[in-house]
């Protein structure tokens, strides 16, 4: 008897708690819906301060001035904090956002946009057309996802042709020239040209230049059903890549996860005449005492320029801010021509502003000029989350192609099959 009573009491107790405690939040639920509209500047109060998260070591020398001029104009204080852009900002935002400590503005690489929008971490912004006209078209398209704008571009980067001036007089205009040079130059530990073409980030330049593409253009952004990585052009490109490896112009030692370190090491020892690498590599090479020259990538044998992948770093407004209108105003200010120029002078990241291409500070800087030039042919990395499924299978395919374990057509077919299955199962 006693036990039955106890059990009954317990059940009642728990049932009571569960029933009583579903929070009643009808009114609260309405609130956030209406307030996200950036158009309603009139209804949005002026904030006391806004918070920015900038990439690590990238705020010195320009951000404080930019903040001061914004405060002078609008009377809004701005605070900033530095966090590693590659992953820390996103990971931190996932936790701090729902907990109520989120910043108003973050900086993110554009290829994360699809993912963070899906997770609901950043919000759509609306700016005037004359603001958008400030930036190059491709950098704006990198900030678009499903037809909506999610940020403003701050800097762009893309791989370029870097050569050791001691070993090469001037950058070749075509890959055919480079091939002949390389055939001549390569012997023992010396290589005429090296590139990590088993890494899809770099290999896309070749596949894309020959006619391949990752996702086709659909009506609303990229079409995830249409994958062009095993079309005729892509296979031709892969064959071309294979040629460099199989003829011994690229050693097997730069294949795989550790290949990048091996390549950098050889270049910094002065054994390699030229490499394909991004602007982030300049400093390390100069530090190693190499006198480098930088140029746009040579054209492919079919006469087309290399379609390198472009990375766009942008300013994004988080979903957690109460002041979307003023946050948007602030990032407009941060990407204005004057501020962008000051930022370039401070941190050497190449801005996306069209008006700055002619600016002497950029036009006379060999590295910046080469990146700007190459950017004309570059395509932004796809920013849809499905892109995450492309890297792995493509790396596998390119690796098997580079080591001649399989021919281009079948390796790429298999990779595309796998990308499609993964997209179907994971997305």
């Amino acid at each position, binding site marked *: 008897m*006693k036990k039955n009573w106890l059990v009954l*009491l*317990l059940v009642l107790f*728990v049932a009571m*708690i*569960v029933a*009583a*405690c*579903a*929070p009643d*939040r009808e009114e*609260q*639920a309405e609130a*956030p819906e209406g307030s996200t509209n950036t158009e309603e500047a009139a209804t949005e109060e002026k904030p006391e301060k806004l918070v920015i998260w900038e990439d690590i070591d990238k705020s010195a020398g320009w951000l404080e001035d930019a903040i001061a001029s914004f405060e002078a104009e609008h009377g809004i204080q701005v605070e900033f904090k530095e966090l590693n852009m590659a992953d820390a900002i996103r990971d931190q935002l996932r936790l701090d*956002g*729902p907990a109520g400590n989120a910043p108003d503005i973050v900086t993110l690489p554009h290829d994360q946009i699809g*993912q963070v*929008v*899906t*997770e*609901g*971490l950043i919000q759509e912004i609306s700016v005037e057309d004359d603001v958008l006209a400030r930036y190059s078209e491709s950098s704006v398209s990198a900030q678009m996802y499903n037809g909506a704008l999610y940020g403003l571009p701050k800097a762009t980067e893309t791989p370029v042709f870097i050569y050791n001036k001691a070993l090469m007089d001037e950058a070749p205009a075509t890959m055919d020239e480079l091939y002949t040079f390389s055939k001549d130059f390569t012997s023992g530990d010396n290589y005429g040209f090296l590139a990590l073409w088993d890494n899809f980030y770099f290999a896309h330049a070749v596949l894309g230049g020959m006619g391949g593409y990752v996702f086709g253009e659909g009506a609303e952004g990229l079409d995830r059903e249409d994958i062009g990585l095993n079309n005729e052009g892509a296979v031709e490109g892969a064959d071309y890549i294979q040629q460099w490896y199989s003829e011994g112009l690229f*050693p*097997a*030692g*730069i*294949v*795989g*996860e*550790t290949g990048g370190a*091996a390549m950098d090491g*050889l270049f910094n020892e002065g054994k390699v005449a030229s490499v394909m690498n991004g602007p982030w590599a300049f400093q390390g090479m100069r530090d190693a005492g190499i006198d480098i020259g930088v140029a746009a990538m040579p054209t492919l044998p079919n006469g087309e320029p290399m379609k390198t992948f472009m990375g766009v770093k942008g300013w994004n407004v988080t*979903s957690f801010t109460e002041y979307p209108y003023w946050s948007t105003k602030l990032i407009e200010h941060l990407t204005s021509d004057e501020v962008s120029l000051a930022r370039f002078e401070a941190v050497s990241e190449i801005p996306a502003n069209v008006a700055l291409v002619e600016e002497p500070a950029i036009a006379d800087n060999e590295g910046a000029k080469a990146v700007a030039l190459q950017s004309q042919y570059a395509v932004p990395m796809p920013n849809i*989350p499905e892109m*995450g*499924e492309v*890297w*792995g*299978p493509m*790396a*596998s*395919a390119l*690796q*098997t192609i580079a*080591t001649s*374990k*399989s021919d281009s057509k079948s*390796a790429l077919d*298999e990779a595309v*099959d*796998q990308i499609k*299955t*993964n997209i179907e*199962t*994971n*997305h």
Partner: protein
Amino acid sequence: MKESTSSTKHRKTAMLLSLIPGVGQFYNKQILKGLVFLILAVSFGSVFFQYIGFGYWGLITLGEIPKLDHSIFLLIDGIIAVLLTLMGLGIYAFNLYDAYHNGKRRDLGEGVNSVRQQYHNLIDNGFPYLMISPGFFLLIFVVIFPIIFVLLLAFTNYDLYHSPPANLVDWVGIQNFKDIFTLDVWRSTFFSVLTWTIVWTFGATTLQVALGIFLAILINQKDLKGKVLFRTIMILPWAVPSFITILIFSGMFNDTFGVINRVILPMIGMDAIPWMTNETFTRIALIMIQSWLGFPFIFAMTTGILQSIPEELYEAADVDGASVFQKFFSITLPLVLYATAPILITQYTFNFNNFNVIFLFNGGGPALPSQNAGGTDILISWIYRLTMTSAQYGKAAAITMILSIIVITVALWQFRRTKSFQEEDMM
């Protein structure tokens, strides 16, 4: 007779009264204890009532309104609510038991303890419990809580498209497990990774154990000069952090520039071996590296045991005319295994989850055609890939559970066998 009739009354009344915590103790005239129970219950209820109710609601629904409800936070709140409830129930049960127990003492005419006696009782009998309780309390939140979290995550559809704050996570029952065993991509990858994981565990561990024991016995020979020097050298691989050793090995095994293919193999007249790009050779290299990393520990342990084996055993064997091998298999090996068996088992379970060496040596590569795990990925590094590149948190949790079940079963089974093994009379 009189006493026994009255006895039923006291214990029953006290316990029933204690349904409101503390009242039973008042009835037993233990005012202080009753007060403690009452205050504890009231404060527990008033502080946690709302929280626990909200937690249960969250745990069951995982949120109802996207953007407002954060499913993962609710899940965490829910688990904490369950833990709190269990603690509360524990104290409540103790309160009932205490009232009943003291009522019974009164019934039997033993009288209840005074406050002073209760204090001494607590110090004398409860001291160990008192001492471990802070640690145990911490353990609940640091160890048990995450385990429950992963366990529950395995039954949700938590992935990129069901990521808070934009979306809600839902309970999906055993769908994740079903998918792993029925969908083609998942099943084939799972079983191929599992096969290699098992081969890896047994290959690498057995080799490192055998090598360690062999070297220990070799160096423990009576006539050997310079034992100290040899022992020091044998321990050295252990003294270098494995992280560094693996990275150095990864450079040494590089296909083109590694010292192994460049210097060592040509010296003995062999051609270069594709260590990093052929999965069979990568596997062989990994097993060798792990033997290198793992043997010093076994070596040191075995050396200690060998020195404690009484010399008389060997003298007696000599008298009986035993050969060297007979002495080894009948005396040395059984005694060594007898003492080290539990540690050997932990070596197997350690290698089963040895993420470092797999990940640092070649990133789980080389890539294999038609598989989404690399050629040397073991289960744990595959789980890492799943969560980092595909954001398949639910599936990864399910695989983690399967992996834990395997490890726990094997460890339990082996430990039980060793126990029976140990109970045999060895000497």
